[in-house]
């Protein structure tokens, strides 16, 4: 059986750090470099912040689910909310597209820079799932 975890928490801003730390501690089993770990934390932060800010519109009582799975030297991270979802994922993923003028619209771009692959499934009123994968440089 592959190693994996599932973490659930309410959509409170202070839990973005919880998600980052948990994913980093899990990924530490692959002995990643500091840069790889920073990238991973960055991607998790973007996805979880989006779940809270957009998915649940900042309400603190939504449930965010973060899962991690190790495949050899690669990690897959899934971030899921049951929030408002998106009509047009492709549009949302365009750099500098944001529905919030206070934000940069760079969350998905950052995830794509930090990880090797980013897939987003979303449906309006049902929620959003972001599945990201990163291959670490083999350390053997």
């Amino acid at each position, binding site marked *: 059986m592959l190693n994996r975890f599932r973490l659930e928490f309410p959509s409170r*801003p*202070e839990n*973005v*750090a919880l998600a*980052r730390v948990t994913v980093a501690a899990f990924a530490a089993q692959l002995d990643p470099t*500091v*840069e790889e770990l*920073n990238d991973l*934390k*960055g991607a998790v*932060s*973007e996805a979880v*912040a989006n779940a*809270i*800010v957009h998915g649940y519109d900042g309400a603190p009582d939504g449930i965010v689910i973060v899962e991690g799975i190790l495949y050899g030297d690669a990690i897959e991270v899934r971030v899921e909310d049951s929030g408002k979802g998106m009509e047009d994922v492709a549009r949302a993923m365009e750099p500098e597209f944001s529905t919030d003028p*206070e*934000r*940069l619209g*760079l*969350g998905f*771009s*950052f995830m794509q*820079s930090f990880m090797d692959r980013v897939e987003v499934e979303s449906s309006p009123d049902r929620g959003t799932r972001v599945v990201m994968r990163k291959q670490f440089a083999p350390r053997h």
Partner: protein
Amino acid sequence: MMPKLPLIICLAGRGMAMVELEVAGEVLVARLFGEIDLKVADDLRSTLERALDNFPVRHLVFDFEGVSFIDSTGLGVILGRYKRLADADGRLGVTGLGLSVRRVLELSGILRVAEEFGSRAEALEAFGGGDAGA
């Protein structure tokens, strides 16, 4: 002449300073600390806004030396404040960039807009902020 502002310290949650502000002449210098993410974004934004409302600031300097993590939410707060000043030829200075902070400043394009300095003192000198923060 603007009086030098006594240090403003803004607390993030329980006891951790997330930003220290100083106004020197027309320059607002913000030293950031810790993890700049959604948790501190609202407080950071309103602290900076209050300073911009109350002092005739033209230029902004951010010192990231104490920052261990920042994401696009945190960068949005910084860029948003700079936009208030950019139309009036305001300048944005950054200093103290560690590896991970530099990476996201680069990715976000902020490093194309901002001027990087070796220290707060250098930034202040360049922006005409006098000797504060030296």
